[in-house]
Structures are given as C-alpha cells and as structure tokens.
C-alpha cells in the first residue's frame, strides 16, 4: 500500500500550482490592516496599465447559499457535488467554502485589535451537540433548610463574629479563642450549687458542666451534618 501511496503524492507535492501562489502570502491579521492603505494604489495601477493580471476574486457564487455556524467555525454547503468528482474538484469546492467562511467571519464579526493579535468575537454555537455528562443536579436541601422553608424562617442577617461583653465592657468573639460560649470555663473560683449538693450529694463543677454541654452540642451538629450528607447521597 505504501509504495502506491508514495507514487500518488507527487500530485500534492510542493510543486503544485497552489503552493506556488502562496509564496508571498502574509497572515490574515497583517493582511487585513494593510489592505486599507494599499487599496487606492492598487486601483490606480490597475486603471493605468492593463498589463497587470486582474484582481483575484474574493466572492463565491453558488446556486444554494452556504449556511454558517460561526460559533463552531462551521460552514455547510448543500450544493450537490458533481458525480465522480476528482481530487481537483474537491479542492476547488473546499477552496470556495473556505473563502466563503473567511468572508463571513471577517464581514459579520467586528475584530478587536490587541497587542497579542487581532481577535474575532465568536457568537454562541447554534448546532446542538450532546453534553458529555448530564446537567448537574440541584443540591439536596438539608433537614434544617426544609424545615425553615416549611415554617417560613428566613436567614438571619449576619451581624459579625464579635459580641459586646457587658461584664468586661469589651468586644469578644462569639466562639473560638476567648469566645463568649466558653464563658465561665476558665474561672479560678466558682460557687458551690447548694441545692444540687443537697439533692445528689455531689457539689458538681459549673466549669466542667458548661464545657461538656458545649462539646455535646458540637457532636450533635456533626451528627446532623452527616445525616444530611447521607440522605443527599441516597436520593441524589
């Protein structure tokens, strides 16, 4: 297969007429900018001397106009191909399509010049293509969120982490280091709860009780969080 292929490629080797034409080309960006000031000269030269070759045409005429989807840089040509079309037929059809697509891109879109180059803003693609994965599902509401929605409870306005401490006359954090929720846990001296001592026979420690209660609340909340996560995974 390989030797057959190599023999045939001579038709598309650099000696082809197309590649000869392309020797003096520049890229589109420079081309477009320079075109404006070179145009008047070109016109006058053409008018004076008829020896110059005629301008290469840039418009494409087809019985059925092309349809474009510029978001995908797509051009759809619904003109029927000639039967038993050769490679050169295909090349000319491709050239016309490329010319039409580039014309469409440069005429309908407004280019913006940046130091990095000339950019064309592309519209959103209109050809529908399937997604890779489904649209992400909405997040499952937590048990509290469902309850709040049922009861019509709105989110509280956040009023910051700091609260005013009446006793010391200072602003202290609600939680965390030296937090308000740890009030009384660091006292060096606490009163004995007489009533409790008479009932249970134990004095009890206000400092320890407060800490245990706080730790218990944290644990409860973590349990609820885990339950919400589990439920959302089950349903979602």
């Amino acid at each position, binding site marked *: *297969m390989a030797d*057959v*292929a190599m023999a*045939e*490629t001579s038709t598309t*080797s650099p000696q*082809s007429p*197309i*590649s000869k034409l*392309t020797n*003096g*080309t*520049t*890229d*589109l*960006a420079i081309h*477009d900018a320079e*075109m404006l000031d*070179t*145009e008047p000269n070109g016109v006058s030269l*053409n008018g004076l001397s008829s020896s110059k070759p005629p*301008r*290469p*045409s*840039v418009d494409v005429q087809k019985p059925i106009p092309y349809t474009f989807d510029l978001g*995908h*840089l*797509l*051009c*759809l*040509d*619904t*003109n*029927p*191909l000639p*039967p038993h079309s050769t490679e050169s037929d*295909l*090349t000319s*059809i*491709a*050239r016309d*399509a*490329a*010319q039409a*697509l*580039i014309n469409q891109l*440069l005429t309908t879109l407004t280019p913006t010049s940046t130091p990095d*180059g*000339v*950019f*064309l*803003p592309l519209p959103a693609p209109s050809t*529908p293509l*399937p*997604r*890779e*994965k*489904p*649209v*992400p599902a909405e997040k499952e509401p937590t048990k509290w969120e469902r309850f709040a929605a049922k009861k019509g409870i709105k989110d509280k306005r956040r009023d910051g982490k700091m609260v005013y401490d009446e006793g010391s006359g200072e602003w202290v954090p609600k939680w965390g280091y030296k937090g308000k929720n740890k009030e009384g846990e660091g006292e060096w001296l606490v009163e004995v709860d007489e009533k409790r001592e008479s009932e249970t026979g134990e004095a009890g420690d206000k400092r320890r009780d407060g800490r245990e209660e706080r730790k218990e609340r944290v644990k409860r909340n973590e349990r609820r969080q885990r339950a919400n996560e589990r439920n959302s995974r089950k349903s979602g």
Partner: protein
Amino acid sequence: MLRQIVPKNARSKRALEKKEPHVVENPKTTLILRGTSCSQIVQLALADIHSLKRPSCIKFTKKNDIHPFEDVSSIEFFSEKNDASLLIFGHNSKKRPHCLTLIRTHAYKILDMLELYLDPESFRTLNQFKNAKCAVGLKPMITFSGTLFDSPTSNAYTLAKSVFLDLFKGHDATSIDVEGLQYMIHISAEEEVDGQPPPQIKFRIYLIRTKRSGQKLPRVEVEEMGPRMDFRVGRVREAEESVMREALKKPKQLEPKTKKNIETDIMGDKIGRIHLGKQDLSTLQTRKMKGLKRGRNDIDEDNATTLVEGDDETSPKRERLEQLEA
C-alpha cells in the same frame, strides 16, 4: 461501573470534583483504542487522528477484544475510567475491512455509534504530504459539502456530521485569533444514486493560505495537509430519543437573564422601554399668538386678572378701568 471512591484527602477530592458534571463542561477527551486484529492502515489512520486531536486525546496501544456493536460494557468501562466521551475503535476483519468505529458516550453510557470503513486505496497519511503542518491545539474551520449532510431525517450522514463536528470542533471559544485560522477540515459526500452503493464520505484537511486581493477581504487558497481518508458507511447505532433529549439539555444557569423592558427584535435591534413620570402640562408652551401676548402695560397683577375675560379693546370693563386710571 467503577467502585464508589470516598475521597480521603484534598487531592483526591479535587480529582473527583473534576470528574463530576459541570454547568460549563471541559472539552471532551477522545480515547483511541484498537481491536485484536487491526491492520497497518487502520493503525496509521488512528495515529493521524491522534496527532490531529492532541492534546485532548489518549491513545492506547494494547489489543482489546472488543466488539462495540455486540457488547458495549468494556467501551463504557474505558469511557468512565478515562473520563472520555469520544472513543475511536479501530478494527479489521474480512467482513468489515479497515473499520473505524466512532463512539460517543453520555454519562459513561453509549450514546451513538457509527462504523466507517476506510478505503485503503485512497488513504494517505499526514506525513505523506510533504509540507508544513498546522500548530497543535488550534480550533479548525469545518465545512460539510453535499446534500446528504443536510437531510431533515436522521441518517448515517447526519450522524457522521454530528460526530465529526463533535470530534474536531476543539475547545469552545468566545473569541478567536485571526492568525489561528490555519486549517480547514472538509468533509464531503456525493449524491445518492439508486442501484449504486451509498456514496463515500471524503475527509480532507487543507491548510489555508491567504493572498492580497486588492480588496478588503483576502483571497483564500487551500493546500492539502493530510490525512486523506475516504470512508464507506457501515453499521449505525443511533441515540435513543430520550437519552439524546437529556444530553441536549441546556443548564438553566447558562440561559441569558432577561432584563425587564429590554428586548431584541427580529432584526437584532435592541429596544428599551423607559417609563417617564406624568408630564406637567401646566408649563407647556403652546403656539404663540399676538392675542395671547401679555401687554407691556399690565404690570399690575389685579388689572391683569380682570383683563383676562375680555380680549376686545372696546369691552365695557376695559373702558371703565381706563376711566378709573385717568
């Protein structure tokens, strides 16, 4: 189905989050596989597709005992394992010579499949064309020529159009550098003729050369870059309608937010409606007439009010006033 992984550290959590469905999706990854028997021609074709599709492409080299139209389970496994939703499976057999199966998946399940039989006679690889190649990772221009690609009913050719577009469209860009318009993929098919085998799909890639034309638009010339492939259409498995509808769904977040009182009409003109307050008509300047003009003499406000009723110079009231003044 892969086992459910519970992330134990932040890195694996990030990796799992990357695989989750997103509102704005990443470019699809292509996975190239080969079957147990895979001819040299098909292997060359797969290598060329891989080099065109870089960098969002994975190519496996080991042989896989897969028959996609008989059993899809291993294809779905590969799709999930590699997070790839476009797969190309190369295979060769006497019944299906030089066969490339293009497969699309949605949510790691097979969406549609298309078999294309490569014509070994006309196949040319990328390197057989001795010219400069385009840069890696550029968004190509794509053109489809032929009436078959625009059929209102879905057939193998419209499916091929959709799959080829999905395969080669590259990343979704909001703007493109003009210098990046370097190459064009041209896919064409001739007319369908009764009594003859269905027409081949001809896959060509051309480099774009632009010339000065003396006008604002450049003259475009094309030069074939390769590869050159001609395909016969083989078996087709179209997507189930419900799955396709699900796959084509657009997320609500991406819909443009409608602004109140701003519309775009069919001509593409933006129309806004503004509500003004009630106009104060008491200060309205109406037509100026000589008769309505205030005289230079009536400085006195009281007199002016009395004068309003009678315009006529010879009214009895006016006479009386003049008498009083005198």
